[in-house]
């Protein structure tokens, strides 16, 4: 009579168990991959309601914040508002002049925008993306530009669901975009910018390009639009390229509202 050792039986059971678990795992993964678009659409129909309730609860909890801290924050914000009001007036005047010029040259730069509320942002999720509460039912399509307000662009729509959309920021690590460096002497230099995460970007340009701290990086389109500003220039000696460190002019992770610009 053939005797099998208990260890061999155990090993065989463990091997069979591992194969079954692995096969089940693969089947589940394939199923989710195939059904992903449908699942995500359905999921976000429900989760967008949950996210909005959560935001409302967050607003309700605000009265419990320290009164002194709120008063101090109010004073600071009033001062910032006063200084930006004058800049805004100047900007509006220049923007109107630009629109007039475009109209005269038969290139109407006016664009329809859709206001969206930011439902999720880092650190709620590990990637440099936003989820906003407007989707295909509001007319949003993939690759629409997203701004923090006015012509301050922060990213593009990367995925659209029925009632929500995903916005990939320009500063998302690994993403590269073509842009124009608007130097203070008025020259426009085509550059390529790469996201570093957290609202930071980087670009390498040849030594000799007129770049300095405070220069704007704009979109290479007719309507333009600011993407970032130069925060540091590093030009090592004996190197052919200098590195421009760029920063978005607005903290994208503090935004509550964004505008989706229709193409």
């Amino acid at each position, binding site marked *: 009579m053939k005797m099998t050792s208990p260890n061999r039986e155990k090993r065989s059971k463990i091997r069979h168990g591992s194969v079954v678990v692995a096969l089940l795992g693969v089947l*589940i993964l394939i199923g989710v991959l195939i059904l992903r678009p449908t699942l995500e659409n359905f999921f976000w129909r429900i989760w967008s309601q949950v996210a909005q309730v959560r935001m409302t609860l967050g607003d309700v909890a605000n009265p419990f914040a320290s009164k002194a801290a709120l008063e101090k924050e109010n004073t600071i914000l009033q001062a910032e508002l006063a200084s930006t009001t004058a800049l805004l007036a100047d900007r509006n005047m220049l923007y109107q002049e630009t629109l007039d010029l475009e109209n005269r040259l038969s290139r109407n730069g006016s664009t329809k925008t859709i206001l969206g509320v930011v439902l999720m942002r880092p650190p*709620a999720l590990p990637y440099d993306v936003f989820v906003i509460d407007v989707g295909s039912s509001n007319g949003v399509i993939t690759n629409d530009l997203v701004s923090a307000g006015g012509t301050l662009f922060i990213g593009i729509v990367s995925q659209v669901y029925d009632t929500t959309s995903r916005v990939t920021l320009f500063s998302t690590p690994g993403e590269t975009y073509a842009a124009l460096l608007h130097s203070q002497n008025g020259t426009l230099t085509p550059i390529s910018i790469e996201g570093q995460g957290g609202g930071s970007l980087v670009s390498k340009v040849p030594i000799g390009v007129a770049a300095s701290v405070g220069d704007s990086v704009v979109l290479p389109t007719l309507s333009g639009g600011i993407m970032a500003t130069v925060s540091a220039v590093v030009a090592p000696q004996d190197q052919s390229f200098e590195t421009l460190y760029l920063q978005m002019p607005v903290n994208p992770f503090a935004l509550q509202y964004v505008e989706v610009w229709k193409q």
Partner: protein
Amino acid sequence: MSRSIGSLIALIILLVGLLLSFWPLAVLGLLFAAIQGRWVLAVCIGIFLDLLWGTPTGFFHFLLLPWTLCACVVVAFRHMLLGRIRLRMPDRL
């Protein structure tokens, strides 16, 4: 720790991570469920997080379902590790 309490703790950690908008806590819930051996719960949490957060950006874009894969890998690793321990110390387990 009983299995149901382990599952409950994993779900609580996940929920706290979602409420506080802090993704590492949500991932900790997934890992806790996977290490406990609750593979169905771990895979479900992984699928939920992948649907919630979407495809990764940048270099890890090719992973498509990173958190589901993470749950499967941790569960498989636990299964193999326990199998080896059982073989070496059959009397203890």
